[in-house]
């Protein structure tokens, strides 16, 4: 069946631009996670949604980062006024129930800020 999809796969932004990254989780999955993965590092937790409720946003690095999941399915991660340090792969994952175990990851969006 269809897995988690993310778009775009690659995004180049000039410093100061706003970007929006999309995640389509597996249909029916309750939990959705966003991670940031810098080159050579493990994924770092950004935020967690249970259906449309954002239950944990403690990993968002600044108020320039904003995530939403208004209808409990598709999610968007928005980064305002991008900085070079925002360059990373942004990963989305989902699980069918209210758990952080056995997450299904998408392929990620590689963001490069120039």
């Amino acid at each position, binding site marked *: 069946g269809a897995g988690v999809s993310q778009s775009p796969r690659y995004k180049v932004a000039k410093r100061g631009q706003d970007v929006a990254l999309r995640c389509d989780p597996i249909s029916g999955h309750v939990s959705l*996670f966003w991670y940031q993965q810098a080159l*050579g590092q493990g994924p770092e*937790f950004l935020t967690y949604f249970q259906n449309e409720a954002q239950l944990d946003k403690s990993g968002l690095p600044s108020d320039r980062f904003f995530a939403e999941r208004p209808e409990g399915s598709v999610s968007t991660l928005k980064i305002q006024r991008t900085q070079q340090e925002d360059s990373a792969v942004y990963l989305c994952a989902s699980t069918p129930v209210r758990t952080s175990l056995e997450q299904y990851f998408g392929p990620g969006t590689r963001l490069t800020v120039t």
Partner: protein
Amino acid sequence: GESVGLHLPTLSVQEGDNSIINCAYSNSASDYFIWYKQESGKGPQFIIDIRSNMDKRQGQRVTVLLNKTVKHLSLQIAATQPGDSAVYFCAESPTGGFKTIFGAGTRLFVKA
């Protein structure tokens, strides 16, 4: 494809040998420990998890060992195959929460 980890600890094994990947964790309060595999250009893929009240769990060709005394986790892969070449991450899942903490990763090379 994209390179996941350019400067990660590396383990190189011969095809058919067993591999052991080690991980030290930090949070004694974590409820679950999980291993993920990440191939170049892809997102992590779940391998196996173990609850904190267990010390060993086996899956298909994989075994995870947990030593809470020294906060150490290991992943053993039997009869390693070229398709096992990837970066392997251990992760912790806290009790009562959803914030999964990933380790730095180990790159496994399998020589044919």
